[in-house]
C-alpha cells in the first residue's frame, strides 16, 4: 500500500503517511461516489476488486518470478468450482466460507504445482503456450465432466450457491440497520473484497522483500546465475506457481459467492489475457502499477461504454457497435497506445527487494 500511496503525484513521496491515509479514505469512499451514478457502478467496482486480486496474484508469477502464464484463469476456476461443489445443492454439501475458501486456495495451489512440474524447463513463449493449453484443459473439463457421473453440470453451470456468511452476517443480502436504512449487499461485497485485496497486498509485499522474493527475482533475471548461487530453482518456481494460484483460488471462491452461480464460460482464455493485460498496462512487477492497471482496465471500458452508447444513438439513431465488441476494441486500443507511448506500463517497476532502513548510517541512494 505504501508503494501505491507513493505513486500519488506531487506529495506521495514527500508525505507518505498522509498519502496512505488519503488512499484508504479514497478506497473506502469509492463505492459511495460510484453509487451516485447508479448501482451498476458499484457492481463494476466489486468486479474491479476481484480483478485486482487476480492481477496481483498473476503478477507474482509473471512479474516477480518471470514465468509467463496464459492460463491463470484456470486457478480462478478451481477456486470458483470448489465453492460450487462444497457450498451448493449440487452435492448437498454446505460448508462455511472459512473452510471452503482455504480449500479452494489449497486446490488451486495443487493445480499450480501440477502445472509447474511439466513446465519447469520451459521459459517465455514456450511456457506461455503450455499454460494456455492448461487453462483451456481446465475449462473443457468443467464443460464435459457430466458423464458418467454429473460433477460440474456442464455448460449449464452450477447455480443456487450458498451466500457468503461472515460471522453471522450474510453478505449476499442487504444489511438492514433500521426499518428505513439498509446497506446494499453490493457495498458489503465491496468492503469484503477490499479487505481481501488489502490482505493480499500485505502478504505480497512481505514476499517481495524477503529471501523468497529475491530468489524469484533472481530466477527471473538470470536463471543460470540463480542456480550458481545455490538457489533451488525447481522448488522456487513451483512455489511461485502455487502462491500465484492461491490468490487466484481465493478470488475464484469470492467470485462464486458473489455471483451465486458458476459456469465454464466465465473462465475463457480471454479472461486470462484480460488479467495479463491489466498487469502489462499498469506496469509489470510493480504492485502499485498492477493495482492501478487492474482498476483502470476493469472500469474504463465500462465508463467509455456508458458514454459511447448514448453518443451512438444521438449521432446515428441506432447502436451499431455492440458493447461487448466495444470492450475488446477499447482494451486493444489501450494496449496499442500503451506499447507505443509507455511500454513499461503506467507505473514502471521500481520493485525493491530489500529495506534500506536495515543499514544504519546509510541514507538514500549512492548515486
Amino acid at each position: 500500500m505504501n508503494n501505491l500511496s507513493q505513486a500519488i503525484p506531487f506529495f506521495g513521496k514527500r508525505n507518505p503517511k498522509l498519502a496512505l491515509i488519503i488512499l484508504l479514505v479514497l478506497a473506502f469512499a469509492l463505492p459511495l461516489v460510484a453509487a451516485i451514478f447508479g448501482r451498476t457502478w458499484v457492481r463494476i467496482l466489486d468486479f474491479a476488486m476481484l480483478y485486482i486480486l487476480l492481477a496481483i496474484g498473476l503478477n507474482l508469477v509473471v512479474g516477480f518470478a518471470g514465468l509467463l502464464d496464459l492460463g491463470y484463469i484456470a486457478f480462478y476456476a478451481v477456486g470458483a468450482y470448489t465453492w460450487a461443489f462444497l457450498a451448493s445443492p449440487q452435492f448437498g454439501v454446505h460448508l462455511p466460507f472459512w473452510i471452503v475458501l482455504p480449500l479452494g486456495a489449497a486446490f488451486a495451489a495443487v493445480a499450480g504445482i501440477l502445472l509447474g512440474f511439466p513446465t519447469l524447463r520451459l521459459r517465455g513463449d514456450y511456457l506461455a503456450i503450455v499454460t494456455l493449453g492448461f487453462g483451456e484443459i481446465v475449462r473443457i473439463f468443467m464443460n464435459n465432466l457430466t458423464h458418467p457421473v454429473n460433477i460440474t453440470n456442464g455448460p449449464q453451470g452450477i447455480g443456487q450457491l450458498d451466500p457468503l456468511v461472515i460471522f453471522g452476517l450474510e453478505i449476499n443480502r442487504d444489511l438492514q440497520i433500521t426499518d428505513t436504512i439498509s446497506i446494499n449487499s453490493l457495498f458489503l461485497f465491496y468492503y469484503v473484497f477490499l479487505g481481501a485485496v488489502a490482505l493480499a497486498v500485505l502478504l505480497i509485499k512481505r514476499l517481495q522483500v524477503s529471501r523468497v522474493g529475491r530468489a524469484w527475482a533472481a530466477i527471473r533475471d538470470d536463471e543460470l546465475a540463480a542456480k550458481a548461487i545455490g538457489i533451488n530453482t525447481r522448488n522456487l518456481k513451483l512455489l511461485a506457481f502455487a502462491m500465484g494460484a492461491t490468490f487466484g483460488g481465493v478470488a475464484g471462491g469470492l467470485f462464486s459467492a458473489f455471483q451465486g452461480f458458476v459456469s465454464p464460460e466465465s473462465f475463457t482464455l480471454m479472461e486470462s489475457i484480460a488479467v495479463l493485460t491489466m498487469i502489462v498496462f499498469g506496469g509489470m512487477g510493480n504492485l502499485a502499477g498492477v493495482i492501478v492497471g487492474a482498476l483502470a482496465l476493469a472500469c474504463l471500458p465500462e465508463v467509455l461504454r456508458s458514454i459511447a452508447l448514448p453518443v451512438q444513438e444521438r449521432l446515428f439513431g441506432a447502436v451499431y457497435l455492440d458493447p461487448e465488441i466495444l470492450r475488446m476494441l477499447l482494451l486493444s486500443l489501450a494496449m496499442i497506445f500503451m506499447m507505443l507511448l509507455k511500454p513499461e506500463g503506467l507505473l514502471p517497476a521500481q520493485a525493491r527487494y530489500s529495506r534500506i532502513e536495515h543499514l544504519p548510517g546509510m541514507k538514500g541512494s549512492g548515486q
Partner: protein
Amino acid sequence: MIKLLEARNINKRFGGLTALSDVSLSINKGEIYGLIGPNGAGKTTFFNVLTGAYVPEEGEFVFNGSELPLGRPDRIVARGIARTFQNIRLFREMTALENVMAGRHIRTKTGLLGVLLQTAHTREEERLTTQRAYELLKYVGIERFAQTLSRNLSYGDQRRLEIARALATEPRLLALDEPAAGMNATETGHLRHLIETIRNDGVTVLLIEHHVKLIMGLCDRVAVLDFGKKIAEDAPGEVQRNQAVIDAYLGGAHHAR
C-alpha cells in the same frame, strides 16, 4: 599441503566432441590456482562440470574430503564452491545490494511461513542479510553503489559485484571465469589486489584467465588445458618453459597432425 579439491579423470563429451578428456588435477587449500589454455580448450566446461551445470560422463570430484554431488548446483554451492561467469551474469533488475543479498540464499533459512507471518526470526535474519551484503560490497569496494541497479554499474564494478555475490555464499573455493576480461590496466591491478585479499582471508581461488601477466604474477600453480586434455600442471615459471604448452599456444607439432 592439504588438498581442497581433487578432480579425478573427468570426461565430458558433447555428441562427438570430447570437451574434457581424463582431466585430473588437485587444488591445495589456500592457493591461487590458474587454469589456462587456448580458446576452446575446455576451461569453462571444466567450470560448468565442477559447479554442477553439466554432468560429466565419467570421473568424480573430491572436495574437502568427500565426493561432490554431480549436476546439483545448489548442493555444490552449499558445500562451498562459488563461481562467476565469463560473460557477467548479474540480476539486472536488482540493486547491487540486493544482488549480494540474493547470494545469501543458501546460507539463510527463512521459509514461506516465516515470510508471511514476519516472525521475529525472519526480521532478524533479514536485517543480518542486509548488513552482511553491505559489508561484502565494502569488501570489494563498491558500497557507494549499494542502491544502484546492477545493470547501471560500470563494467569493472559489475565484475566486482559478481565476486561479492559469489562470496556471499561463503565459499571455500571461489572459481573465477576470466575476471579480467575487458578490463584496463588500472582495473586489472585492482582486481589482482582483490583476489590476493580474498586468498589471504582463507578462500582458495581457481582462476581461468587469458591475461598472462595476471596469471604469472598471481597464481601459485597453473594447469594448462589443450583440446580437453591437461598438458601441464606446475608453477607458473615452469609452465612458461614447458614445450607442450608453447606448442599448444603457438601451434607446434601438436596442431600439425
